[in-house]
Structure formats: C-alpha cells, structure tokens
C-alpha cells in the first residue's frame, strides 16, 4: 500500500507460496473461506500443496513463534463468475477468531456504496518507499460514484467495478496487495465492498482507483460456499 500507515485490519490475510513468500492479499469472509483475486494464481486448478494463508499478524515476515500467527494451508479454489476476477479459497480448517482475526461483513446483493463513504485498503504490498514494508499498511480512501469516476476514465469503468476519490498525493494499492480488501465503514460495521485488482500504475496521483464491486458477486460467494 502506497501512502498508508501501519495499521490493523483483522480480516486481511496474506497469501504465501511454498517458499513462504507473500505474493497477494485476501479477505476473510468466513472462518474457512478467503476471497482473493484470480490474477494471483496461475489458474483455478493448480496443485495447492505448499500454499498457505497467514493471519493474525501485522508483520510481513513474522517469526514462527509470534503469538497470534495462524498459518492455514489452502485446500480448494473456486473460480468466480465470468469477468469477476474473483477467486474463493477454502482453507484446510477454520481459523480461530480472536482479537487479531475477524470476519469482514459481506454486503447485500447489488448494494451500491454511497459516494463519500469512508473506506480503507490494507496490505503488505509495495509501499514505493512511502512506508514500512515490513508491516501491514492501511490507507483511507473515500468512495465516489461511477458517474464521477467515468469522467476521468471516459466511461470505461463498469458497473461491476467501483472507484475511490483521486488524491493529490499518491495513495493506493500496489503490487502485493492484489486480492486484498476495500473495506467500507457502513452502519457501524466494516463491510467488504471492493477487492483490489492490478492496475497499470499504482497509487496514481489525481486519478481515481478502481476496485471490483463485491456486492455484484455476493450471491456467487454464498452459493460457492454453500455448494
């Protein structure tokens, strides 16, 4: 995350490859389910041996003995609907919810976040020198309407996507954050409204950031978990 601050985001998870390297983010939507981006994995049918989800820590390289750290192997993948870029990961076992690990709410189907809503992104990805690479960074962003966003993007932003306000300073998600959450504070709760997806440039000043809109696909999330 560029332009963020060390922070706390108990639903943000770190995806690890078999060398233990962080390569993407994700959001804990159920005790045994994480939502992330398809872009993070070679395909929806790769051998998952060695891939893990790490939670309950703020550190990019936590010590094995760090209290609260939970490392859970990934057992299964479910590919999201066409054009969703979503990927659901089923963990080998449910995580333990506690002070450091919490679920994030899912929005109702087709819910549209009102412009101006306060949101935040979180991740262990690239800070481009603006922060501390070794801890979880969180940045605040505010939602704008697709209509306003499309002024800059000349109509290219789809309804299944959503935007946050462009800022003068470079603030936003970057490489290594993909799949992570855009969490918005709505009705006294944090809700997973967006998912970080790769863009051509990170944290581009004076340009709105684009995210996948979770509410368009929340029915699939429920169905995939149920089936």
């Amino acid at each position: 995350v560029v332009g963020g601050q060390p922070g706390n985001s108990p639903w943000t998870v770190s995806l690890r490859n078999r060398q233990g390297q962080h390569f993407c983010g994700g959001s804990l939507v159920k005790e045994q389910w994480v939502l992330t981006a398809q872009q993070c994995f070679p395909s929806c049918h790769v051998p998952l041996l060695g891939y893990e989800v790490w939670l309950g820590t703020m550190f990019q390289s936590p010590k094995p003995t760090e209290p609260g750290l939970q490392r859970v192997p990934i057992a299964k993948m479910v590919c999201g609907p066409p054009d969703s870029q979503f990927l659901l990961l089923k963990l080998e076992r449910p995580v333990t919810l506690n002070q450091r690990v919490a679920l994030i709410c899912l929005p109702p189907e087709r819910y549209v976040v009102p412009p101006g809503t306060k949101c935040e992104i979180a991740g262990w990805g690239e800070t481009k020198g603006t922060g501390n690479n070794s801890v979880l960074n969180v940045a605040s962003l505010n939602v704008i309407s697709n209509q306003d966003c499309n002024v800059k993007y000349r109509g290219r932003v789809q309804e299944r996507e959503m935007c946050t306000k462009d800022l003068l300073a470079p603030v936003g998600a970057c490489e290594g954050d993909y799949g992570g959450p855009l969490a918005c504070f709505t009705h006294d709760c944090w809700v997973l409204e967006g998912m970080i997806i790769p863009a051509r440039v990170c944290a581009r000043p004076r340009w709105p950031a684009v995210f996948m809109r979770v509410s368009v696909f929340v029915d699939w999330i429920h169905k995939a978990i149920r089936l």
Partner: protein
Amino acid sequence: QRSPLNDFQVLRGTELQHLLHTAGPGPWQEDVADAEECARRCGLLLDCRAFHYNVSSHGCQLLPWTQDSPQTWLQRSGRCDLFQKKGYVRTCIMDNGVEYRGTVAITMGGLTCQHWSHRVPNDHKYTPTLHNGLEENFCRNPDGDPRGPWCYTTHPAVRFQSCGIKSCREAACIWCNGEDYRGSVDRTESGRECQRWDLQHPHPHPFEPGKFLDKDLDDNYCRNPDSSERPWCYTTDPQVEREFCDLPSCGPEAQPHQEATTLNCFRGKGESYRGTANTTAAGVPCQRWDSQNPHKHRFAPEKYPCKDLRENFCRNPDGSEAPWCFTTRPGMRVAFCYQIRRCTDNVRPEDCYYGTGEQYRGSVSKTRKGVSCQRWSAETPHKSQFTPTSAPHAHLEENFCRNPDGDSHGPWCYTTDPRTPFDYCALRRCDDDQPPSILEPPDQVLFEKCGKRDPRLDQRVSKLR
C-alpha cells in the same frame, strides 16, 4: 557426515510383498530410533537388500529381496516406506560399477550371460558369495574392470563381454537448466556425495520433498528445485553447503516439449511468456537482465538461454507465481508484472442467453472451461441440490446448462470434475440484451456480528501513528 540412508532409494507409501512370505521374512524391530538406524542395520548385513520402515510405529523390517527379485511385487501402503539398496534398483552405474547388483544379464553384443555358478561353456575362478554378489547370470564387476559390469557368455566363441550398462551420468542428460532432470547421479562435480533431500543434516534447508512434489526431490539425487543454472545438491561435507553436479547437456537449447509461448498475455505461471512488457505493476521500469545494476543477481541471460532473458522484459525464469523482473529502483529489488493479462483458458461460448438465463432452454452442456456438465438427475460426482423433480420449473433436462436458482451470473451446471462442484457455462449474454443497472440508491443495510475490529487494538495503533 553421510547418512546410512544414502545407500538406499525410497518408495514412499509402498510395501514389498513376496508370494511365499505373506507376513514378511522376519520380525519387526521396534527398538529403532528412525529410518537411519534401520539403514545402518541393513547396511551391515550382506543379505539385507531392503527394509520396510513403519512411519507410525517407527519400526523396521529387514528384507532379503527387492522389487526385482522373483515372486515379489510392490503394493501401496498407508503405513510403510520401502527402502532398497541403490545397487540393486539403480539401472545405471556409478564409477566402474563394482557396486552394481541389478538384473541385466545380456552383454553389449546381445549375448546371454553364463551363470556365475556354472563352469561351462567358460570355466573361471569366481565363486558366488554374498560379498561379491555374483548372482544368477547377472552382469557384475568382480575385478574392478574400468569398462564396468561384464559376464562370461553362453557363446563358446566369446569367453566374456562387457554389458554396456550406462553410467548414471550418461544415462540422463539435461535440457536448458535441468529443472526436469530426474536422473540418479548423487555426487557433485567435485566428487562430494549429495545429502538426502529429506534430511536436514548436515545442512538444514527449505526444500522439503513433501512441499515440492513437482520437483521430485528423490533421495540424494541431483536436482534443480530453485531454477539455478544447473542441477545441484546439498553435500554431506559440513564445510560445503551445496555444489553443482556435472551432467551432460542434451544439446541445442530448445526443449522438445516446450509449451507454446505467449506474447500479450501469460498462461499458468507465465514461464512461456515472451512479450515485451518491461515495467512492474507499480509502473517502475524493469532492470535489464544483462545488467547487475542496481540489483546484482544470478539470472545472467547466457546462463539461462531457454528463458529468453532479453533486454528488460518481464520473464519468469524461476517458476515464480507470474512473470517478474528486477526493478530500476534501488529500494525495490523485484516485482511481479501482474499488469500483464492472463490468457483466458475459457472455451468459446457456444450460445447466448437473455437476462439471467433462467429461460435458457438450449442444449449447451459444457462449462466455460470446457468441462462436461453432470446430469441434473445424477448424484455423482456431486450431490445435486436442484433436480428435475425438485425444480420442475427449470426444465432440468439431461445435463443441459440451466439456471434453476436464478443465479445473476447466468446458466450453470454441476460438473463432471470431482474438484469443481459447479461452474458457469460456455454461454455469453446475447448482444441485444441489456442487463438492468444496479446503480440505484442504497437501501437500508442490517449486519450481524462481523465487520468489527477490536477498538483497543485500533487505539494502540493510532497511538503508534
């Protein structure tokens, strides 16, 4: 600090059965500490050729036979690993092959070997013993002949002849950087013996065979799990952690079974990507591969001729998750090029639907990945929640794509792939169909207990700020 297991080749989860000894040749020895102890005991006994190691009770059973012995066969086992002495199961030889105990019994010239216990047609001075291993009429090297194992022949005019068994070094060559090498060389180029991959001594290491199944980190054979320039191994010399192995190249650099390269998208991990994207997803220009500045690295183009490390293009020479590059920013050593689109592996849509496809009545019966749909009336491989009887309105005929639950993402089906309960179909929205907009004003939202974080933690961190 070689391990006694270095003399053995393991078959995980396998038992060696013998027709005449269903319970095995002798009792289980439960008083051993680990497989190495079993190997030590078996190694001392000339008539011990293999052993079972029980991974749960940690007991072992010494065996006088191997999988090549008559009336034996291999069987899957949930509790045992089978260790067999390399001399008996390796099909190639190390050095001059005096340790060879295989079952080849034909000479280079195609002549059948004479039994060592026979004196005709060729008389000789050798007497088979457990020590010299002169068994049956198998090729052996009792006199250390530099040309390797040989035998007396059954042809009166040819007294003896070499058997032409290949050295392990010659038996398998390497393509490119040898990531696919699966040969049986277990020594480094300096002659040091390799450490077993499943041991952490004398050198602890991260390459656990169970975690790198695709790298086949068998026993202590040379391998290349990290895309080094050549196959290598950790050594049994505590002073030398790892060394390359001296293996012959298969020839010109193109790999015979190379995957089709892609230019403007990448497939899988992007190892065959040959496009010209040369910035990271963060927009930082990539460093040239043939430069060591600002980041020193080992991926010199001339050492990786098959990886096409031209200029500063994003590439994946080491099996990472996606194409990547060293960046021109000193503080950012490497970065993925996730901005390169992934090639879609979807099949071409075969039909179209309107709205959510609830009224679709076509006969497409394939998922977007090309997997055949399961019949709605079937119970395997997936138990159907929607059946022709439970959802008569949905016309769930045969295995045609349908939308019995009004899924907003279109017709779907249960799949015949056991790993994929359901998936969307090889269908697209009809061109003249406009989905309703979702950008209406938000409605009242009620949430349960999720979405909360511990305010105490938050406060502490903000103090941190």
